[in-house]
């Protein structure tokens, strides 16, 4: 069958085929064909490439990496991403001495020569804004937690709290890219895509990497979140995160239209696949194969997603744990519940996004809302995983892209203040498979401004996450632009042993 493509254009495409693609393909096509017939559609290695038998997954197959490098403590991970930059001073990093310094200027020696954002660099003064909320000690570990997080406070003994996380970026876009992809510039694969590429799928009927966005609250200062954050970059696009919509059908056009039954759908897909195969034979673009496997995944998701999203069989105890909000699709609590259900069904990596933490002003007005929206969901998810025996091999991560300043942005009054972006220290937590529960790692100075002990830069943070999942971050690589690309980048990164169980 000949496609209605002008011959000139086709020649142009063919010329784009790189030398590497050519050699990668000729060597592997035969091997993959043989392997595919042998496996009969099922992989034994646990990586998705053998399971997706539609041909080579890309110019480089992760099977060669022989992952996991060692027995993993966690099989899967759930990443609760607090987009915008939660203020560590108001939530976790307790600084009781600041109360006495209300409205005093932050010493120059603390701030040093740091370049600030354009939003506060013009301020005449940098007055200290102590946290509006009281802190109390919780749990057997006696960990200080703000009154804003009454639910999370109940599980501090299970958490690995990192007070010394720090980043190189001071603005949202580069910082959120750095957290997710290890690079400030867009175009690199994110953590979830690296995991999908390296470890493959555990459940052939659901995507390996899923993304859940929380419905936007218009009262909050929302920074944009989009598919660049769950992009697979230069990896095959089948490793990109699959987002579920926060309202209506979780996946658009998932249900067959009237008059199209499952058999017709199958026949249609078979025909499309055949055409795609021909295109692949002709042009050799690995993205064609990615497209074929995405069609197949969508077909399987037609049955698996409705089952995933059907909460009718959840026991009453679920609702009393997550709260009534969890019944409403798109809320943070609902997404946490979905994350648990995905973990049960073998989704390798789930990322839940909650926007709105960018509190430049009106901290006392906004922060209680943000915490009220997220606090119970976090607690419910961890508790639920724990009681169901899933926390043993699931890693849960709570993090934003940076912290917020101790000094007030804009006016400071006893009732209200604002906080600007702060990259030099922020608090994150993890729990579950691979990390040591009940510890607080790292220390900041008296102003929660600089890390004074055990700094954890983003690359080390990510190296540690990979370690929990059985991956040596230096070995999960992909050749691109002449470099063995990796999540932790070119600056040497190291796993933080103090965080590990």
């Amino acid at each position, binding site marked *: 069958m000949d496609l209605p493509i002008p011959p000139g254009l086709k020649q142009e495409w063919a010329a784009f085929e790189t030398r590497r693609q050519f050699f990668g393909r000729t060597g592997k096509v035969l091997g993959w064909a043989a392997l595919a017939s*042998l*496996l*009969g559609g*099922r*992989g*034994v*290695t*646990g990586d998705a490439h053998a399971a997706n038998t539609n041909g080579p997954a890309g110019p480089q197959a992760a099977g060669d990496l*022989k*992952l*996991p*490098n*060692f*027995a*993993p403590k966690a099989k899967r991970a759930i990443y609760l991403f607090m987009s915008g930059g939660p203020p560590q001073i108001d939530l976790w990093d307790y600084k009781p001495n600041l109360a006495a310094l209300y409205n005093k200027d932050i010493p120059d020696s603390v701030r040093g020569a740091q370049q600030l954002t354009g939003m506060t660099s013009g301020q005449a003064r940098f007055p200290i804004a102590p946290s509006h909320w009281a802190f109390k000690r919780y749990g*057997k*570990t*006696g960990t200080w937690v703000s009154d804003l997080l009454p639910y999370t406070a109940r599980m501090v*003994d299970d958490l690995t709290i990192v007070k010394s996380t720090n980043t190189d970026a001071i603005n949202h876009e580069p910082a959120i890219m750095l957290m997710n992809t290890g690079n400030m510039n867009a175009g690199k694969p994110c953590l979830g895509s690296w995991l999908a590429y390296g470890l493959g799928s*555990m*459940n*052939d*009927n659901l995507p390996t990497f899923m993304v859940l966005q929380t419905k936007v609250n218009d009262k909050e200062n929302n920074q944009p979140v989009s598919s660049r954050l769950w992009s697979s970059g230069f990896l095959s696009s089948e490793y990109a995160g699959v987002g579920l919509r926060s309202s209506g059908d979780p996946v658009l056009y998932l249900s067959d239209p009237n008059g199209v039954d499952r058999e017709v759908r199958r026949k249609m897909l078979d025909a499309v696949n055949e055409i795609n195969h021909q295109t692949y034979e002709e042009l050799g673009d690995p993205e064609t194969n990615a497209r074929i496997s995405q069609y197949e995944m969508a077909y399987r998701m037609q049955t698996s997603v409705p089952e995933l999203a059907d909460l009718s069989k959840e*026991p*009453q*105890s679920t609702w*009393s*744990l997550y709260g009534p909000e969890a019944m409403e699709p798109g809320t943070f609590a609902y997404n946490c519940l979905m994350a648990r259900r995905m973990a*049960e*069904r*073998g989704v390798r990596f789930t990322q839940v996004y909650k926007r709105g933490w960018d509190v430049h002003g009106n901290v006392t007005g906004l922060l209680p809302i943000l915490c009220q929206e997220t606090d119970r969901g976090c607690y*419910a998810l961890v*508790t*639920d995983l*724990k*009681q*169901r*025996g899933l926390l*043993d091999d699931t890693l849960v991560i709570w993090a934003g892209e940076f912290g917020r300043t101790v000094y007030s942005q804009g006016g400071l009054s006893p009732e209200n203040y604002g906080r600007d972006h702060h990259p030099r220290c922020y608090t994150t937590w993890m729990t579950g498979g691979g990390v040591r*529960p*009940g*510890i*607080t*790692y790292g220390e900041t100075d008296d102003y929660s401004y600089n890390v004074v002990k*055990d700094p954890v830069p983003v690359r080390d943070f990510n190296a540690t996450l990979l370690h929990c999942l*059985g991956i040596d971050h230096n070995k999960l690589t992909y050749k691109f632009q002449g470099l063995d690309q990796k999540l932790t980048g070119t600056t040497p990164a190291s796993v933080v042993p*103090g965080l590990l169980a």
Partner: protein
Amino acid sequence: LKTFKDVIARADQLLPQGRSIRVVWLAALLMSVELLLLPLIFKLDGQAHGNWQQFLGRFHPLVVHVPIGLILLVPVLEIAGLARPALREAAGFVLKLSFIGCLGALILGYLLAYGGGDVGAVVTRHMWGGIVLTIFVLLCALARPWWISGSVSRVYPALLSCALLALVWATHQGGSLTHGSNYLTQYMPAPMKQILLVDYFQSSPASSGSFYAMHIHPIFDSNCVACHGEGKIKGGLRLDSYDVLMKGGKDGAVIVPGKPESSTLLARVTLPSDHKQFMPADGKPPLKPEQIAWIRAWIQQGASPSAATVNGVTIREESKEPTLQPVGDYSGMMHEILLMQQGQGAKLVQVSRNPADGLVLSTVDVAGSFDDAQLAQFQKYAPYIVEVELGRTAVTNGCFDTLAKFTNLRALHLEGTGVTGVGLQELAPLTQLTYLNLSETKVTPANLAPLGAMKNLRHIYLYNTPAQPVSGADAAQSASRSAL
């Protein structure tokens, strides 16, 4: 045979003759006596002496490996010399060289101990081991010509054997100084420990059950005692028991009860790690933050040897995971496994690239239909399977019969299945099983009783079962062994 005679003839010519032989022996005797008297002349008094001694002494660990290698080479050359006489000739040279090496290492070692002020039982044993070894090597070198000439055939082999025994003893003491005395036995499998009576010789700290014994002493034991213990007493300080700890070192007490800020020990472990006085010294791993916090709280509240708790500090009892036995190498069976599971939907997945980590039986793709009969098909590969995921499958109580044969099973998922727990006792032989998930099944408390005897089974999940009903109120308590 002819060549052999030639060799002997040549060796005869090399032998010292007449008066000179007596001189050599006299000199050797004198040197041996000197070596034996060395510790009495320059007594190891626990005081540091001069920097240059320490500077030179620190080359001891480097130099010491040279004579070790050379001495071990001697018997090899002697034996190989039976077939290739040229090698036997070399043995004499190597032997003399090893004596020079021994002497050098001995002197440097002595400078190290003397200069650094090291004393202690292991230091003493190591020192005497080195001296005796050097003397034996010297005697070997002197007795060898007799053996070559055939006049006295037994003395040299006997001396060489003694030298080798002395070598093993002296080097083991040296290793204990560097790595700690339990370095070799720490990860020894328990049965071997029993046979070799390892624990029998290990001392135990005072008043067991106290906070000191449970939490403080183990920190010192694994981080400090190698240099501050019975074997080696740096700075006159020992930390291997409560009494010696409180006695302090040559600069006085290191722990001031109730005053963490004046306790030298705490100060030294909290310095910046590149500080000259930081402990543990010499690049050994620093104490963990929580360990330092425990020590501080313990000192703050009186540094008691017997108090069972310290306010504000609760240490999660880290249930020590049992050491897992590695599974065999399944790589050879991979092809067969692939064929067997073709069309099954269930699959065996590698835990890691290392076959000793085993395989996981994953059924998530076909959960609804996977039943006892399909499980039985995987029985053949049971020895390689460490985890079986049967959550939400169609298996019944009949599966326990099959699972009992999965002798390397570490984790078993049965959540959301139809099992009621009848037959759970069949899992009793699974000594490696540490995790069992029975959440959302109809398992009853009575049926769980047999699991109580399974020592290693530490994580049992019973959420939403008759054995642990959900209250409906806030979060249910997580399951634990106490449910049994």
